[in-house]
C-alpha cells in the first residue's frame, strides 16, 4: 500500500490554502509558490508515469480504506492507463496556466489558490473509484471554476458563470439520483464492483427488483448520462460552453478546455461505458447521431464566429465529439465486422490519444490567445487584426503549429488520434464516420480562415508596433509545441501506456 495518489492530490490542495493565506500583498511570493506547488504535482505525475507498469491494465497505486462503512463509502483511489494519462495532462496544463496568468493583479492570492484547488479537484476526479469519493472531487472542481469565471472574467462574466454552474448542477443532480438508486439496489458505490455486476447482468436485475419498473435501467442510465453529457459537452447540452470559455480569463479557459472538459469524457469511459454497456447498446443509434451532430454542428458554428475565443470554444466541442463518436462506436454490438475487437481497441486508443492531444493543443491555443490579448489590450475579434505575420513572425509560426496540430496535420499530434478514431469507427459504424468527416473538413476551413484573417493579408497599421514573443514567452509555449511534435512522431509514448487498459475496456464491453 502506498500513498502516491493521496499526496499528489493533497499537494495542490494544501498549496492553495497556503497561497490564499499569504495575502494580496506579496504578489511574487504568491505566484512563485503556486507555480512551485503545480511543479511538484508535475514531478509527482512524471514519477508515477515512470513507475507505472504499462503491461498491466489493472488499477495501480491503489489505496483503499473504509470511510463510512454503513453507506458503502470507501476511500478508494487508483489509476489505470486512462486515469494516469489524465493525471499527467492535468499536471502539464496547470503550471502552464499559472504561468499564463502571471500578470493577474487583482487578488492574485485568491486567483492562484482557486487554480490550485481546481487542480486538486481534477486530480481527485481522475483517481477516485468510489462514487462518493469521486463525486466530492467532481463538485470540488466546479466551485473554483465558477469563481475564476465570476471574479476575473470578461464583461458578461456574471451570467456566463451562473449558466455554467447551473447547467453542470443539473447534470450533477441527475447523476447523484442515479447513483443513489444504484446504491440502493446493489449496496455498492464502487465503480469496479458495479462494472463487474453490469457485465454479469446482475445490475439490471437488481435495479428492477428494487424499483419494479421494467426500463429502470434506461432511466438510471439517462440520469448519469446527462451528468457527463453536460460536462463534455454533447450537443444539445453545450450552450453554457461558448459563454463560459470566452468570458473566462484565457489562462482559466486553458484549464477549462484542457482538463475540465476531459472530466466528462473520462466519466463516460470510466463510469458509463463499463457500468451501462447494455443500455448504451439499446440507444446506440440516437447516441451516435448525437455525437455526429456534435461534431458537424459545432464545426459549422465555429466557422460562423467572429471572436477567436468563441471559435476555439466551438472547436473544442468539435474535437471532443470525436472522442464520443469513438466511444459509442466501441460500445456497439457490431458482430458482422471483421475482427471487431481490434477495431474497437483502435477507436478507444484514438479516443484516449485525442483526449490528451486536445488537452495539449487546445490549452496551447488559448495560451496564444492570452498572449495576443495581452498585446492587443483585450481585443480578439477575427477582424481586429490582419497581417500580423509580418511583425510577429515567431508568434505566427508557433501558433500556426498549434493550429495545424488542432486540424490534424500528419506529423503533429492531432492527426494520430483522429486517424485511429476513424480507422476504428469506419467498420463499426460506417454512416456515422462518413458524416463526421464533414466535421474534419469544416474544421480545416475555419482554422485556415483564422490564420488568414489574423496573420495574413495587409498589415493592420494599428498593430505595427506589436512586440513579438519575448524569450520568457517562448519558453512558456515551448513545452507544448515540443510535445506536439513528439506525440505526432512517436505516439507509442502514450499508446504503450494505455494499451492494456484499452484491451481491458474492450473485454468489458463484450458480453
Amino acid at each position: 500500500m502506498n500513498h502516491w495518489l493521496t499526496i499528489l492530490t493533497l499537494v495542490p490542495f494544501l498549496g492553495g490554502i497556503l497561497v490564499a493565506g499569504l495575502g494580496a500583498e506579496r504578489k511574487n511570493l504568491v505566484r512563485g509558490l503556486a507555480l512551485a506547488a503545480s511543479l511538484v504535482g508535475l514531478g509527482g505525475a512524471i514519477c508515477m508515469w515512470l513507475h507505472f507498469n504499462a503491461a498491466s491494465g489493472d488499477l495501480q497505486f491503489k489505496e483503499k480504506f473504509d470511510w463510512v462503512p454503513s453507506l458503502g463509502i470507501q476511500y478508494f483511489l487508483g489509476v489505470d492507463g486512462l486515469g494516469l494519462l489524465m493525471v499527467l495532462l492535468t499536471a502539464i496544463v496547470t503550471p502552464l496556466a499559472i504561468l499564463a496568468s502571471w500578470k493577474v493583479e487583482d487578488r492574485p492570492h485568491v486567483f492562484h489558490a482557486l487554480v490550485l484547488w481546481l487542480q486538486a479537484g481534477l486530480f481527485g476526479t481522475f483517481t477516485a473509484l468510489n462514487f462518493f469519493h469521486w463525486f466530492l472531487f467532481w463538485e470540488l472542481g466546479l466551485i473554483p471554476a465558477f469563481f475564476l469565471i465570476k471574479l476575473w472574467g470578461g464583461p458578461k462574466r456574471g451570467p456566463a458563470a451562473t449558466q455554467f454552474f447551473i447547467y453542470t448542477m443539473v447534470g450533477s443532480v441527475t447523476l447523484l439520483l442515479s447513483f443513489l438508486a444504484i446504491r440502493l439496489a446493489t449496496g455498492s458505490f464502487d465503480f469496479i464492483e458495479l462494472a463487474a455486476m453490469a457485465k454479469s447482468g446482475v445490475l439490471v436485475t437488481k435495479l428492477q427488483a428494487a424499483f419494479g419498473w421494467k426500463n429502470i435501467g434506461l432511466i438510471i442510465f439517462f440520469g448519469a448520462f446527462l451528468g457527463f453529457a453536460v460536462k463534455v459537452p454533447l450537443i444539445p447540452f453545450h450552450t453554457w460552453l461558448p459563454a463560459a470559455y470566452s468570458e473566462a480569463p484565457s489562462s482559466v479557459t486553458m484549464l477549462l478546455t484542457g482538463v475540465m472538459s476531459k472530466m466528462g469524457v473520462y466519466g463516460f469511459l470510466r463510469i458509463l461505458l463499463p457500468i451501462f454497456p447494455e443500455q448504451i447498446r439499446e440507444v446506440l443509434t440516437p447516441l451516435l447521431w448525437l455525437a455526429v451532430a456534435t461534431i458537424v454542428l459545432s464545426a459549422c458554428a465555429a466557422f460562423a464566429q467572429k471572436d477567436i475565443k468563441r471559435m476555439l470554444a466551438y472547436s473544442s466541442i468539435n474535437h471532443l465529439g470525436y472522442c464520443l463518436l469513438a466511444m459509442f462506436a466501441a460500445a456497439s454490438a457490431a458482430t458482422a465486422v471483421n475482427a471487431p475487437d481490434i477495431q474497437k481497441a483502435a477507436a478507444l486508443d484514438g479516443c484516449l490519444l485525442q483526449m490528451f492531444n486536445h488537452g495539449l493543443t487546445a490549452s496551447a491555443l488559448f495560451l496564444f490567445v492570452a498572449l495576443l490579448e495581452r498585446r492587443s489590450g483585450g481585443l480578439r475579434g477575427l477582424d481586429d487584426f490582419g497581417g500580423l505575420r509580418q511583425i510577429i513572425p515567431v508568434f505566427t509560426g508557433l501558433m500556426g503549429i498549434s493550429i495545424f496540430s488542432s486540424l490534424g496535420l500528419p506529423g503533429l499530434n492531432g492527426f494520430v488520434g483522429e486517424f485511429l478514431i476513424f480507422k476504428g469507427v469506419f467498420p463499426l459504424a460506417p454512416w456515422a464516420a462518413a458524416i463526421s468527416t464533414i466535421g474534419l473538413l469544416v474544421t480545416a476551413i475555419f482554422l485556415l480562415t483564422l490564420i488568414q484573417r489574423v496573420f495574413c493579408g495587409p498589415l493592420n497599421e494599428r498593430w505595427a508596433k506589436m512586440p513579438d514573443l519575448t524569450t520568457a514567452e517562448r519558453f512558456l509555449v515551448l513545452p507544448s509545441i515540443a510535445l506536439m511534435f513528439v506525440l505526432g512522431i512517436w505516439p507509442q509514448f502514450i499508446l504503450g501506456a494505455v494499451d492494456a487498459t484499452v484491451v481491458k475496456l474492450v473485454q468489458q464491453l463484450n458480453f
Partner: protein
Amino acid sequence: MLAWTIYITFFGVLVLMFLPRDNARAARIVALLTAIAACVVAFAGAIQQANPGEVTTIVKTPWIPGIGANYYLAADGISLVLVVLTGLAAVSGILFSWNIEKRTKEFFAFYLALIGGVYGVFLSFDVLLLFVFYELTIIPKYFLIARWGSTRKEYGAMKLALYSFVGSHLVLIGLIAAWVVAKGQLGHASLDLIELSKVAFPIAFQHWVFPLVFVGFAILAGMWPFHTWAPTGHVAAPTAGSMLLAGVVMKLGAYGCLRVAMVMFPEGVRMWQGEIACLAVAGIVYGAGVALVQRDFKFVIGYSSVSHMGFVLLGLATLNTVGFDGAVLQMFSHGIIAGLLFGVVGRMVYDRTHTRDFNDLETMQLGKLIPFAGVTFVIAGIASMGLPGFSGFVAEFQVLMGAWTVFPKLTILSGVGILVGVAYTLRAVQKGFYSDAPPKPADPDHPLEPISVPERFGAVMLIGASLVIGLFPGLLMNWIEPCFNSPLSMFARLLVKGGSQ
C-alpha cells in the same frame, strides 16, 4: 451527566438576573461561559454514553404520581446528536450577538432560558415533561423577537407565538386522548415515552390522533403549508434569535414528530405516510422557489430553511432506516448551516450596512469591503446547496436514498428542489457580495467596521462542524444508526414492513 446541560443553562439565567443592569460586558461573558460549559458537558456526556443505541436513563423520579408523570431524563443517540447541536448553536449564537448593547443582560437571560428549554426537550422521555419544556421555549422566543428584533418585529413575534400555541394545543389534545386510551390498556396511568411506545393503540384511534399530534409538532418544523411563521419570524428576529430559531427550534418540531407522534402511533404514520411525503416535497420545492425571488437577503435564508426542513420530513416519511438516518443528520446539518447563514446575513451584513435589500447591497461591493463575510457566505452557501464535503450532502444524500424506493416520483421532484436551491444560493452570493452592478461610492464617514474576533470564532466553529461531519459522517452516524437498527429500540415498530399488528 447530560442533565447538567439543562441545569447549567438555567443557572446561567439566574446569575444573569443578579448582575447589575448596566454591565453589558459581564452579561456577555457570563452568557458565553454558561453556553460553553453546557456545550462541553453536552460533548463529554455524549462521548461518555457507552451505548447510543439504547435509551440510557439519566434521572427518573416520580413527579405527579396521580397522572403517571415522572421527572424522567434520558438520552439515546438521537438525543445526543441534537444536544450536541444545541451546544454548538448556543455558543455560536452568543458569539454572533456580542454587539447587543440594548438591555444586554435581559437579552442573554431570555436567550439562555430558550436554550435550557431546548436541552430539556431533547432529553425528556416523559411526555408531560417534554411538553412542559416545549412550551417553555415559546416565551423567550416571543420576547427575543418582539424586543430585539427588526422589520415588523411585533407581527413576527406574535405570529410565531400563535402558531406555536396552536401547534402545542393540537399536540396536547392528542396526548390527552392517548393518555386516556393507554390508561385503559395498561391498567395504570403512564406518561413514560418508552412505555407508551409499546402500547398498541387501536388502529382507528391512531388514524385520527396521529395527524393531530404530528401536525402540531410539524408546524414548528416548518412543514408546508404551516410554514408561514418561519420566514417572517426568522426575518424579524435578532441575529442570534434567527440562528436559534432555524438552528434548534425548528428541530424541536421535527424531533417531536419523530419521538412522540411517530413512535406512539406507527399505524397512523403508515396511513398518512404518502401525504406527509407530498407536503415535505411541496415544502422543499416551494421554499426553494420562493427563496429565488426574494429581495430581502434574510427572507432568502428564511425560505431556504423551509426547503431544508422539508428534507427532514421527507426522511421521516420514508419509514426506513436510511431515510431516518438522513433525517436526523439533516436536523444537525441544517442547524449548523442555517445558523451560519443567518450569522453572516444578520450580524456581518445587516448590522454593518443596515440594509438587507439586494438592490442596495448590489452597489456595495461587500465581497471586497468585508471579504471574510463574503468567503464565509460562499462556504455556507456551498454547504447549504448540498455539495459533497459538507454535512448537508451526507444528510440529503441519505434522505433521497431512503425516499427512492418508497416515493420515486417525489424523489425526482425533490431533485428539482435541490437545483432551485443552487440557483437561489448563487443569486444570493452574486447579489449580496460579488455583484457586477456599478458600485456606489462608499460613505467615508461611516466605514464598515471590520469583522470582529467573536464573529470569526463563531463562523470558523460552524464551518468546521459542517466540514467535519461532511467528511466523517461516521462520527454522528455511530450515534444515530444503532437507534434505528436495534430491534428492541422504540423505533422498531415503525420500521417493520407491513405493520406490526
